[in-house]
């Protein structure tokens, strides 16, 4: 918690270039986040969001498909596929980053946003599979059968029964993917070419002392997430209470 508070406090620092010494309180940085260095922070932040969303969408789709297949079907290559899914999680990020970077080179692909998205998708898939798999495993197949029994065609059964029931798992997986992608530095660093992302921006500017604007953005993201989660928790608890009282 302490570092978070520190980050938060220093987002109000009236610094000039670097942000290592406390020079007084100002709201300027919050009001003019995007102006420093021609908006580099905001651009990096925007890139991070775009990459996070793209990687999340692809990884969640592919991972969910694999998860369903793994739970619902039996096939000989199961063991191999499970291993293939475990490997990226067991591989240190440096290795993933370096390996993939070399691969892009060998194929002659220029590094840009696309390569970052491809890289992020790769390490997110495994996490998605693990998350969604648990949800699929706890889904009673009788529910899908009930759907079929009640005249639902296979696609209707999927979209009206299976998918809504898997949704909490899929959403959790997507959030996890996004968080992983958004905060990834090591793999990004190897595969980004000249594209800037928020962690990269922080790392690069770390050498000069991070501009207060980075703290502003980080704090804002943090506050936003915190408020979101707390609102969700409180309303959930309130609902639980209401229902308990009602019974």
């Amino acid at each position, binding site marked *: *918690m302490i*570092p*978070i508070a*520190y*980050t938060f406090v220093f987002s109000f620092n009236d610094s000039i270039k670097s942000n*290592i010494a406390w020079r007084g309180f100002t709201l300027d940085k919050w009001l003019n986040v995007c102006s420093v260095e021609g908006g580099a922070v905001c651009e990096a932040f925007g890139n991070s969001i775009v990459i996070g969303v793209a990687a999340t969408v692809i990884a969640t789709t*592919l*991972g969910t*498909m*694999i998860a369903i*297949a793994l739970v*619902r*079907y*039996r*096939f*000989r290559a199961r063991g191999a596929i499970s291993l293939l*899914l475990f*490997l*990226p*999680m*067991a*591989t*240190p990020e*440096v*290795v*993933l980053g*370096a390996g*993939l970077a*070399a691969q892009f080179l*060998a194929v002659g692909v220029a590094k840009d946003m696309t390569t970052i998205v491809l890289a992020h*998708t*790769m390490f997110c*898939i495994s996490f998605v599979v693990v*998350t969604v798999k*648990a949800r699929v*495993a*706890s*889904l*009673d*197949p009788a529910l899908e059968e009930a759907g079929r029994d009640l005249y639902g065609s296979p696609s209707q059964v999927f979209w009206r029964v299976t998918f809504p029931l898997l949704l909490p798992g899929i959403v*959790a*997986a997507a*959030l*996890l993917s996004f*968080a992983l992608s958004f905060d990834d*530095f*090591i793999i990004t660093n190897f595969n980004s070419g000249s594209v800037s992302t928020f*962690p990269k921006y*922080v790392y690069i500017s770390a050498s000069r002392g991070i501009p207060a604007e*980075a*703290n502003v953005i*980080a*704090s804002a993201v943090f506050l936003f*997430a*915190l408020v979101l*989660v707390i609102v*969700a*928790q409180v309303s959930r*608890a309130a609902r*639980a209470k209401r229902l308990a009282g009602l019974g």
Partner: protein
Amino acid sequence: MAFAAFQTAEAVPQAPRRRSRIALLLLLPGILYLVLFFITPLVSLLLTSLQAPREFGDIGQYDYAFNWQNYVAVVEAYLPHILRSFGYALAATVLALLFSYPLAYFIGVKARRWPLLQGLMLVLVIAPFFISFLLRTLAWKQILSDESFIITSLKALSLMAPDAHFTGTPFAVIFGLTYNFIPFMTLPLYTTLERLDLRYLEAGSDLYANPFTVFRKVTVPLSMPGIVAGTLLTFIPAAGDYVNASRDFLGGPDTQMMGNVIEANFLVLLNYPAAAALSIILMAAILVLVGVYVKRAGTEDLL
């Protein structure tokens, strides 16, 4: 919520099905993707690790060969870093476990009666996820620098030698690793403990076990899946981490880990075969360790 991701729900028995074309269709895109973007890089990494320097070549120029001596060379040169990586990762994992277990136990078991408190505590645990870990680590560096309030107080209280310092020491690196991976440890622990059936604990005390024995004989074994998941999620990235140990963050010259060595070889020395060989060694070592660990913990079905 992100922490829901660590939840594993009670599985319902699934009827074994026939092999199916649908399964293939579902699997194919994802698996192809992984083969393309995970397996092939791995293979070329393997090939790179066997490259030999080009004759009369400039810096960073290598040719394909079967130069397995690369492995011998890097192990000779960097054995201390290899051992240090695993040592630090292990220490961080143990510390994170010691810190997280009581925390997760409190949130998952004790706080069950107060869902609001449980929710808020969970939020605090996952809060660090929302701030870039680079920023958090840098903040620690500032907070624990020699002239910082904490360190000067410690010195004033004679809890630290006057000429001792924190940043740049192994302790600082392990501290950083521990701090950064605590959420990864806490969340899986929380999800198993949250589902821990308290009736087993009651059965334990009914059968004459005192609270400590109940914990040792019942609670711990039953939360094993969480412990295994948490330690893996902590140990693996910690062993490969290079940010905490980096000289620009919490580390110093004698705390460099494998990640730093790989980075230096890859970016500064342009010694790609060495970097690749080290990567392969790191990965193989982790796989072996994880395999042995998971076997011994008896939780192969974790994945």
